[in-house]
């Protein structure tokens, strides 16, 4: 237990250390050694503490840079043209600049999660006190904060302990950001190492946020049977006043829900959410509903469904308030991160604010007290719903046909569309009375509105698409499982073995945002494919929503079809973005609980274990944000590969292995100290894939690990080969790289493999006890 700010006042005291008078103490820390685990070598790592580990990874997975711009404009010595090796006025070249942009993105991401955690923790400490105990799963989760323990060496037991953890994060983030200043780092690899450090810090920040909110708000606690939550625009009961919350920070939503509960209004209004706030709402209140991912903002507001729009932080459209104004829905800005220029009404009486919003005197207000947000939002919703009558600004189908005739076929909409959608053709058809091509765009459109911005005749193209797809929209009635939080220790105990041996073919973590190339269906298809193959499938955030947004032949959503257990064939939604550390945490706990490796401040060893033994792979099919970058970075740092969908190429830097370079794939055999070639397993650390087919093949392959037993390897290979044959129409060309002994070959494929191995001049090798760390070699002892 650690605790802070306990206050002791001693009037007078005589002790062996002297005579004390009028001493007032705030106790910084009461040392308690109930955590018997010895401290590892790297607690509270600084910028360079884990640099050697990073360089091991970066040497194996070298950065491939794809600059988005030939320039650097970060200081006024510039702008500098850095094309093809030209250095800028500060001496920087495009490689270093490219890695600096990665560091900047990861730092922004880590700051965002940590800032979010800081807000949540400070708020909860104010409300519940520093000594409020943490509880993320009772006796089922004794390793309550695996990432925090691993990185910082701290075992947090109360809210107050989390304060200390966050101070560490804030210190590191300040250092990391400073490295992006002109005239700091000169080496691209050192920038990359710092980006990995940002990822580590980010995982800690997220973990703190989630365990704080799980503990105090009584979210599902490592519960495989967390409730099924209604999801989709079609589930919203529009006969009730609708409060819509957008963002990531659940605190204002809790204010709303508490106010409803306290005033017996829980069934009188709809509270719906978009983006991660939606997920966390439903962890708090199972009558909350999920509208959909980040990209549903415009369609829901323009569709008029929301009577009040409550905006907190992160992933909130900058024009959300303007769009709400169009449909006369008042806006409450509820975060100091997003004040929208509104007047701060935090200290005004609630009823005054309500009156101003209902009368339309002001379009929106800033309220930084979550309880007041609750009261105002509910009262405004109740009063304004009958007035607004769900006013919307979607055009009628006839209007669309008429307006489409004004289209100049100038292509600017398509050229401004991130999806490169063929809008001009769809409008041509619409003008001719055929709306089908517009409807076809519904699934691929990410709702960004850029098309409209470019149109010289101001056609509201996105609204056209939404209207044309309205049938699909209103039919969106699905289920998401409320975020369950952590994985239980007992679950780890039962599947740790099969995972490490390779008998469970992999853990697939499908996370992140909704910047999908062709809509969310790919996410569903991929999750289902691997759940059926009895991988463990974990989800979070917008991806967790997309995964639940489609149904199988029996009309069941993914979360109905598969159990929520951390077990082969389970599909687990861990929760919102800040729940991602439960995924990393599961891998860490495999090393700790199953393999009994020390956790505390022992980063390298655990990462080395995971990298070589735990067949986990992350897929961020629609990653778009700086947060997604830092989340990915946290996984890279643990040696876990991450795949992104095509838009992920715009992160501008991949970490790619070279399967064709044999020398890159040596590990130590911890038993002997020998160097053993284990092949490209996993082949990449960060990789963009173009299509869902490519993603599936890559996932199967990236789950292969040096430590696989022959049985595990043969299972993994059979999935890889099976998917490859089905989706690529041919055998993989690199199978020989993954066969150590003939026992690795899947039973049914002996003949095929034998031919391949002969052709490739294959030689048998050993299955080592793999490690990248020379200090892990035990030879001397044996």
């Amino acid at each position, binding site marked *: 237990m650690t605790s802070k700010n306990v206050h002791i006042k001693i009037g007078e005291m005589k002790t062996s250390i002297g005579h004390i008078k009028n001493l007032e103490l705030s106790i910084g820390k009461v040392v308690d050694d109930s955590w018997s685990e010895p401290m590892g070598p790297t607690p509270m790592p600084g910028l360079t503490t884990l640099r050697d580990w990073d360089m091991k990874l970066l040497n194996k997975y*070298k950065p*491939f*840079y*794809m*600059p*988005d*711009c*030939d*320039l650097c404009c970060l200081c006024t010595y510039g702008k500098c*043209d*850095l*094309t*093809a*090796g030209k250095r800028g006025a500060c001496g920087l070249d*495009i*490689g270093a600049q490219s890695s600096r942009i990665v560091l900047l993105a990861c730092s922004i991401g880590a700051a965002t999660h940590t800032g979010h955690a800081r807000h949540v923790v400070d708020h909860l400490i104010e409300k519940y006190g520093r000594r409020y105990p943490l509880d993320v799963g009772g006796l089922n989760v004794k390793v309550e904060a695996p990432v925090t323990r691993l990185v910082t060496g701290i075992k947090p037991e109360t809210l107050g302990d989390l304060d200390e953890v966050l101070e560490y994060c804030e210190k590191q983030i300040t250092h990391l950001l400073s490295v992006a200043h002109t005239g700091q780092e000169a080496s691209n690899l050192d920038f990359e190492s710092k980006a990995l450090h940002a990822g580590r810090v980010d995982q800690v920040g997220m973990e703190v946020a989630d365990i704080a909110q799980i503990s105090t708000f009584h979210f599902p606690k490592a519960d495989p049977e967390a409730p099924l939550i209604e999801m989709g625009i079609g589930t919203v009961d529009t006969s009730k006043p609708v409060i819509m919350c957008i963002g990531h920070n659940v605190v204002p939503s809790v204010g709303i829900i508490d106010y409803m509960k306290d005033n017996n209004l829980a069934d009188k209004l709809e509270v719906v959410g978009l983006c991660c706030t939606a997920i966390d709402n439903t962890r708090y209140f199972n009558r909350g509903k999920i509208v959909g991912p980040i990209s549903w903002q415009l369609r829901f507001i323009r569709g008029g469904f929301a009577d009040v729009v409550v905006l907190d932080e992160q992933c909130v459209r900058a024009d959300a308030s303007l769009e709400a104004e169009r449909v006369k829905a008042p806006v409450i800005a509820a975060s100091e991160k997003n004040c929208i220029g509104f007047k701060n009404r935090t200290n005004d009486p609630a009823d005054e604010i309500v009156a101003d919003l209902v009368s339309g005197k002001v379009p929106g207000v800033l309220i930084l007290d979550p309880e007041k947000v609750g009261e105002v939002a509910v009262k405004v919703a109740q009063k304004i719903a009958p007035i607004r009558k769900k006013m919307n600004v979607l055009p009628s189908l006839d209007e669309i046909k008429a307006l489409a005739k004004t289209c100049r076929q100038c292509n*600017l909409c398509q*050229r*401004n569309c*991130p999806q*490169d959608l063929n809008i001009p053709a769809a409008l041509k058809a619409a003008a001719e009375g055929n709306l089908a091509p517009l409807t076809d765009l519904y699934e691929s459109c990410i709702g960004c509105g850029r098309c409209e911005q*470019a149109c010289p005749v101001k056609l509201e193209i996105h609204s056209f698409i939404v209207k044309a797809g309205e049938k699909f929209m209103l039919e969106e009635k699905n289920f998401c499982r409320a975020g369950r939080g952590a994985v239980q220790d007992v679950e780890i105990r039962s599947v740790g073995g099969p995972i490490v041996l390779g008998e469970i073919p992999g853990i697939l973590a499908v996370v992140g945002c909704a910047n999908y*190339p062709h809509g969310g269906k790919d996410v569903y298809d991929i999750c289902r494919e691997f759940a059926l193959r009895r991988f463990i499938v974990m989800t979070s955030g917008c991806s967790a929503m997309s995964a639940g947004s489609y149904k199988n032949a029996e009309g069941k959503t993914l979360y109905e079809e598969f159990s929520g257990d951390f077990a082969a064939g389970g599909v687990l939604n861990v929760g919102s973005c800040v729940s991602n550390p439960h995924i990393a945490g599961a891998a860490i706990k495999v090393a700790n609980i199953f393999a009994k490796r020390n956790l505390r401040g022992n980063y390298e060893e655990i990462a080395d274990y995971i990298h070589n033994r735990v067949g986990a792979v992350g897929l961020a099919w629609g990653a778009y944000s700086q947060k997604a970058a830092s989340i990915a970075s946290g996984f890279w740092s643990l040696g876990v590969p991450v795949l992104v969908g*095509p*838009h992920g*190429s*715009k992160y*501008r830097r*991949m970490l*790619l292995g*070279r399967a*064709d370079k044999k020398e890159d794939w040596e590990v130590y055999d911890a038993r002997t100290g020998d160097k053993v070639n284990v092949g490209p397993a996993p082949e*990449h650390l960060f*990789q*963009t*894939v*173009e*299509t869902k*087919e*490519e993603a599936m*093949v*890559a996932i199967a392959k990236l789950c292969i690990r040096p430590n696989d037993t022959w049985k595990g390897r043969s299972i993994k290979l059979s999935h890889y080969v099976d998917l490859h044959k089905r*989706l*690529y*129409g*041919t055998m993989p*060309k690199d199978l020989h790289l993954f066969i150590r002994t003939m026992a690795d070959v899947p039973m049914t494929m002996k003949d095929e493999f034998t031919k391949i191995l002969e052709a490739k001049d294959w030689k048998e090798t050993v299955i080592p006890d793999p490690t990248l760390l020379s200090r892990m070699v035990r030879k001397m002892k044996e």
Partner: protein
Amino acid sequence: MSCEPWQCAEIAATKKANPITKPEVAVAMIKKAAHPILVVGSNATERYMEGRPLIEFLIDFANASKIPVVATAHMVGEFLKRGYEPADFMSAMDIGNRLVDPEWQGIDGKGHPDLALFVGLPYYMEALILSGLKHFAPDLKTMTIDNMYHPHASWSFPNGTLEDWGNSLKVMTTKFRC
């Protein structure tokens, strides 16, 4: 505007592709290359011209020009299905990453490509890979044979219609045949 980047925001390039004004010019340049390769991306089955998918035009072109094809994503299956065997297949990032390695000896091991043709990747992805090559493979020439102007390539066709594109590919194929 035909030599504006197809996607509005793809402007930030100081060194910009020379526009290919006629397919014949492209053919002449390809013929000069000792080790050309053609990278074909996943749009090969999504874009249609004259009712035929792009991939069919590309197979004709590859057969005529004998340029080895590297299929990205799951395109290898699409080629095989149509009776054409690409020289290799790998992810778009993998081929990009190999091309920036001066030691890489090409898919046939016979020498680093001196000209990489690209076609059919999502526009922004192709742009990024071409940018990576422009910056980090200074000795490599790149060309796109899409119908969208790509500033980061060494040579690019200007923005054009599907008809233009189909014609260009056919002309190029013919020029190699004869």
